[in-house]
């Protein structure tokens, strides 16, 4: 254990956090970049996903494996026993965690449907305020209702990778996460190239015109929010499982709503490649600041975390003022000209790089 290179840990953690944020940002880009819906309550879906991951699989395993004790009260011992059980039951564990992702997606999608209720009825600014307020509620409820995620104490989450040797646990998790992020990327690219994606952009650019052409603008928006929230919930569940614990207070507005907005704005709105670039820039910058935190801790008379926040706020303002289109600019839609449909590998290549 002691011989692991710190640079190696740095990179595996970077990849994991990048992948999780990439999924959230792709979903936010679907809503805000392509759909023009300012979802200032992104934390709602992310938090819901994390709460599902923190409360569902542990309880299922505890009941299957007949582990004694209350899941919240004796959380540490129950989760430790569950981790041991996982080592001998890899197949069943896989099923349980897949089931968890399904529940997370369903809960996220349900909250998305709830979110879309005001989203279809309110104008931009009122909507933003309402969604912001909705987003706050997840933390308040999680913090004060212990049966969910242990209230102020938080809970441990059983680790589906318990069977992997300790030194390989984090690299394995990073590989799984980056594969998930790649799948999410492909899914988002496919969505925006689908009829739904095109009508979404049409609704964003001119609602009246698209409505007059027979598009049900409300339905298009609602579908988008539901899909995006389900994706964000899966990302939240991945985060909870990756970190191995969940505490309600961590699901605050700045980490899961403001930073995703920052990343997609730096990268460029309505542009999935830009989202990846923005996410990578942001996550790397933050990790580097935290990594070198100790070396200039004594230079300044305050906690370096605040310098980090100051810097990120300032960067966002500079981007908004001087390069509002972000690093990579949205491309105009190409619908004509692609006469022959590419097949197989070429099609995937096109999705990734064109």
């Amino acid at each position: 254990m002691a011989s692991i290179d710190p640079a190696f840990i740095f990179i595996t953690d970077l990849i994991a956090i990048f992948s999780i944020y990439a999924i959230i940002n792709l979903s936010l880009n679907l809503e805000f970049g392509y759909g023009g819906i300012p979802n200032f309550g992104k934390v709602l879906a992310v938090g819901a996903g994390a709460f599902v991951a923190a409360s569902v699989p542990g309880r299922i395993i505890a009941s299957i494996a007949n582990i004694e004790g209350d899941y919240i009260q004796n959380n540490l011992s129950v989760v430790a026993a569950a981790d041991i059980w996982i080592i001998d039951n890899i197949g069943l564990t896989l099923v349980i965690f897949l089931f968890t992702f399904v529940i997370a997606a369903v809960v996220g999608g349900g909250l998305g449907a709830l979110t879309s209720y005001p989203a279809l009825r309110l104008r931009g600014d009122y909507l933003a305020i309402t969604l912001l307020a909705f987003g706050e509620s997840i933390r308040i409820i999680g913090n004060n209702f212990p049966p969910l995620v242990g209230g102020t104490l938080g809970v441990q989450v059983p680790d589906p990778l318990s069977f992997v040797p300790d030194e390989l646990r984090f690299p394995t998790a990073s590989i799984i996460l980056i594969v998930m992020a790649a799948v999410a990327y492909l899914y988002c690219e496919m969505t925006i190239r689908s009829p739904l994606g095109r009508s979404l952009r049409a609704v964003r650019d001119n609602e009246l015109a698209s409505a007059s052409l027979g598009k049900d603008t409300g339905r298009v928006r609602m579908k988008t929010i539901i899909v995006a929230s389900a994706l964000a919930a899966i990302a939240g569940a991945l985060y909870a499982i990756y970190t191995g614990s969940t505490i309600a207070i961590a699901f605050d507005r700045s980490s899961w709503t403001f930073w995703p907005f920052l990343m997609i704005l730096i990268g460029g709105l309505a542009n999935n490649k830009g989202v990846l670039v923005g996410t990578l820039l942001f996550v790397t910058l933050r990790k580097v600041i935290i990594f070198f935190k100790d070396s200039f801790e004594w230079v300044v008379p305050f906690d370096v975390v605040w310098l980090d926040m100051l810097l990120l706020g300032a960067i966002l303002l500079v981007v908004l003022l001087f390069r509002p289109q972000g690093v990579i600019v949205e491309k105009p839609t190409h619908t004509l000209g692609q006469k022959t449909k590419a097949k197989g590998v070429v099609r995937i290549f096109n999705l990734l790089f064109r």
Partner: protein
Amino acid sequence: MINPVFFDAAVFASLLVLLSLGLTLTYLTTKVPNFAHASFATLGVYMTLIAVRVWDTNPYIAVPIAFLLSGLVAITLYVFILKPLARRGATEAIQMIATLAFDMILIAGLNIMADYLTEGFRIKSREFTLRSYDLEFMDLPMIVFIAPIAVAAIGITLYFILKKTKFGIAVRASTENPDLSGTVGINVNAVYGVAWMIAGGLAGVAGALMALWFLGDPNLGPLLLPSIFAASIAGGLMSIFGAVAGGLLVGLAEVLGTRFLAGELGSWLIAYRPLIPLIIIAVTLLFVPNGIAGIDWSKLRSKIWRR
């Protein structure tokens, strides 16, 4: 002896009135909800802390300083960020995100200041209370009287400024129709700038007074924000008088409503107090989207009268 919960309610409601007044004023000018508004108040909280603990003076000295400081910060946000963005045709959402970014910077700055106060002056600068530094009046803390009186005075002054002075007419004209006001010789930018200064200043005053009754912390802004927005939305977001009514409604509902419900249903309910502004926002937007100011009272009265 009066139950202290009524003092809580009176102080909180008055300060919420000041904050929602300011928020509504800025919303009227730029049509962008300012998410940094609550942190202007936190600046005021720290002015009081500095006045009391560093300078060892009367806490009320901090009030005018907080007005100036928060006013200047608000003007900075308007002149250097929101105005250029609006000129470049940035959407509403982008401008809202800009105010969020500004809020981040403010909160970071406040935290740095809090760390500095602790390091440099050995002062408790997080979750501090200054109640014991307040003056006394009729055996009660002075803030209990000052807060409602100050709010009433500011409300009346603002009313007269807006209704009776040339400047007030200019403000109302420029919010109603900026282009037309520009053509008749009103300097719309200057008017908006002053409106932002006043709004920020009022938030600073609210913060400076709040420090004498509630816990102070650099991260107060995000906690306070839903209440302020609930107050403004309940008031209709477009009406100064609606903001006063909304502030009173939300302030009293939060403090007295929670206490009453907790008495009826059990004390576990107190922790859910932050949900009250959220419920008020949802109910207002669903049933009375134009807020208190938008209700046609005479119609409502005649309806009830007939029954």
